[in-house]
């Protein structure tokens, strides 16, 4: 089981992601944003950070990098992809996930642990039963999820809402949404950082299960 972690110029959480995945017992390596092949990788991580300096809009320029064309194509064929924080913004800009992430309601960067509730969803990544509450850190200035009414109704009907802020959205997100997935469940984007809490040394390992679900699924298909 090998994860590829995409390195965009301006990414700053790719080392955390690689470290977390290796700590969990998986192979993990970096994929350069100019690469257009995902050969050899079973799943892809779009890490947090400020790709291309967040110029224009968060994720707006990163989505046109060669690796994103490959990700768009392969994810359509079932390749598991997780976008964390800036990675979630890139996935919405690339229209691989619906909606968009705008400035936090209070226009402040928020960096603290929040309580998330795992919802009943089609997401392949998460290995927690619905209703589980976990503490996961957030660190973003633009994590305020928005979409139109029709999209929200579809997200609910298709069970695409994966995690919600259990104590209200600190950033103003619509319907307290913290993370969503595509209809098939293989593409998952969330603002919180589960990779930061995968080892008790860092205070908690409650984020590990955000990666273990997909590993179990891929293992079972062998």
């Amino acid at each position, binding site marked *: 089981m090998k994860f590829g972690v995409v390195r965009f110029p301006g990414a700053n959480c790719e080392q955390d992601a690689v470290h977390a995945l290796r700590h969990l017992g998986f192979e993990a390596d970096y994929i350069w944003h100019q690469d257009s092949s995902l050969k050899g990788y079973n799943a892809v991580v779009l890490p947090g950070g400020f790709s291309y300096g967040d110029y*224009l*809009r968060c994720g*707006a*320029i990163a989505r*046109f990098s060669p690796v994103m064309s490959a990700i768009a194509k392969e994810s359509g064929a079932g390749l598991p992809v997780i976008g964390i924080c800036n990675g979630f913004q890139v996935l*919405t*800009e690339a229209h691989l996930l*619906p*909606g*968009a992430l*705008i*400035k*936090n*309601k*209070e*226009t402040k960067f928020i960096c603290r642990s929040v309580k998330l509730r795992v919802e009943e969803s089609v997401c392949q990544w998460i290995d927690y039963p619905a209703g589980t509450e976990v503490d996961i850190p957030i660190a973003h200035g633009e994590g*305020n999820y*928005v*979409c*139109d009414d029709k999209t929200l109704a579809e997200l609910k009907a298709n069970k695409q809402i994966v995690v919600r802020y259990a104590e209200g959205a600190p950033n*103003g997100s619509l319907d307290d949404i913290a993370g969503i997935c595509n209809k098939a469940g293989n593409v998952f984007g969330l603002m919180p950082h589960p990779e930061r809490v995968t080892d008790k040394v860092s205070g908690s390992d409650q984020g590990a299960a955000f990666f273990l679900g997909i590993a179990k699924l891929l293992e079972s298909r062998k």
Partner: protein
Amino acid sequence: MKRFAVYVTSKEGIFDPAGENSRKALKSLGFSGVTDLAIGKYIELEVEDSNTEEEVAKMCEKLLANPVIEDYKIKEL
């Protein structure tokens, strides 16, 4: 050469946190009569004469604006 101005603003119904917080800041400074304040982006492009307004609209759809949350207006200068 031609010059175009592009104004990018939040779509109606999409909350504009920077605008709303600036409005509140004005209020706390005593400017209580401001009922709405929208913050957007102003982009100026210089293009070769062969580029039409339709071409600039394509640039907006593809990159300069996010049609999910933003509207844009184009004006030739």
